[in-house]
């Protein structure tokens, strides 16, 4: 009997954990997108007010906080510093591919970031601001969508996890 109880609690715990993990991808994505928006804002104001060249700028921003987007910044700078002849957008793409291997970001988010990298640094300040605003707009849209999905799915996955565990227990015993 005692063994049965232990096994069933274990099953319920595991499946609810899986539910939580699933749910977490939604909250994580929301958090990350929010982060990206904040970072882009920083990027914009730095470009407008100090016109710092990108390698210094990215290093400076990534020193302030450690998130997935600043990790992308960091590895971009690392590639650029080697001066092996990659352009910014190439280095950016490589960095994104490297850093988003296990990311909760969706393909469309990554695609958007890559697109954004193609425009970064190649024009004057006015134009840069436009590009950054545009990217920010689009990420904001994904962010809002992500919140809606989060609200819908987080609870569901958590409940689903618990319920699935209980179902398995009932079927087993």
């Amino acid at each position, binding site marked *: 009997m005692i063994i049965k109880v232990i096994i069933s609690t274990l099953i319920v715990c595991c499946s609810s954990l899986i539910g939580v993990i699933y749910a977490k991808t939604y909250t994580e994505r929301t958090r990350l997108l929010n982060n990206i928006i904040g970072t882009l804002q920083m990027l914009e104001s730095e470009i407008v007010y100090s*016109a710092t*060249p990108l*390698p210094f*700028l990215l290093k400076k921003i990534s020193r302030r906080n450690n998130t997935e987007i600043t990790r992308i910044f960091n590895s971009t700078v690392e590639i*650029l510093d080697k001066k092996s002849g990659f*352009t910014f957008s190439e280095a950016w793409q490589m960095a994104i591919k490297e850093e988003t291997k296990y990311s909760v970001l969706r393909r469309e988010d990554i695609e958007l970031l890559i697109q954004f990298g193609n425009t970064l*640094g190649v*024009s*004057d*300040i006015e134009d840069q601001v436009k590009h950054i605003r545009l990217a920010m707009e689009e990420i904001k849209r994904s962010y809002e969508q992500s919140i809606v999905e989060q609200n819908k799915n987080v609870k569901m996955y958590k409940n689903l996890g618990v319920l699935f565990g209980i179902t398995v227990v009932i079927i087993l015993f």
Partner: protein
Amino acid sequence: MFIPKISSINENHKIEMLLCPDVRGIISKLPSNIKKELEEIRLRVDKPLMINFDNEDYFVSMDGKVMDGPSGSFIVSKKNIENTLQFITNYSIYSVEEELKNGYITVEGGHRVGIVGKVLCSKNDIRSMKDFSGLNIRISKEKKGVSSSVLKYLIDNKGEFLNTLIISPPQCGKTTLLRDIIRNLSTGMPSLGFKGKKIGVVDERSEIGACFQGVAQNDLGPRTDILDACPKAVGMMILIRAMSPQIIATDEIGRREDSDAIEEALLAGINLITTVHGKSIEDIIQRKVIGSLIERKIFKRIIVLSNSKGIGTIEKILDGNTLNEIIGTAIKNKVG
């Protein structure tokens, strides 16, 4: 005459780093004696890759062969120019927006990159440039020692510096000579009994000091203050008031207000050294501003440069008071 050489291998490597991979590969294949002499690398959209040394243009083929004619040479694409510009501007064109308005960027090492493209105007001002179509990488060579043969003529027997004017056609080493004179005046020349003086440099075109992020890339001596990218007349006034120089050096004077500023400097007891574009003294005397300065015998020494025996040939040195020749035979003055 002993003239120290700057290690050119290292310098060349830095220049190659400015180029996009395709062009970099080709330039790195050039024979090393040509690399050392390289003065310009020119990239134009859909036109052959061109280099300049010994005051002559040459084209370069895919495998780094130097040719007189354009056939068979490497054709530069728009992509090449865009990528090269990325490396030149440290991947951030926006960070050099102000420089772009002047049409050139000074990079680390003092090299200058001239840029042309489509200019966007607002009212009378250039707002920015885009669709870049041509780059000219001018390799700066700091030739220490080019002024050794003229310095003794620029100092009188009391060890005082004499106001000097350098007359030279383009690309004959006028700025290089000026730079080396500044360095020597600032450092002092014990062999001539000349103690170093405080020098103010107004570097309107960023050619003398070649400042990169405010720091001079060329050695101008320990007693030199540089006003980078400052209009000459305003700059001279600032220096007179702010830095109390004993000598003011500028490049290429010729405007009305320059002459007023020179007047001011002379009143303050400051000596001058400056340059002007021109072929001969007769040619210069015709000009309004500079001509009247010469006629009023403000310059005590006039150096005329030419290309007759290679870049930097000192054609003659004149006494500004009498316009007599102090040395009348051209001195070959090639360095490096």
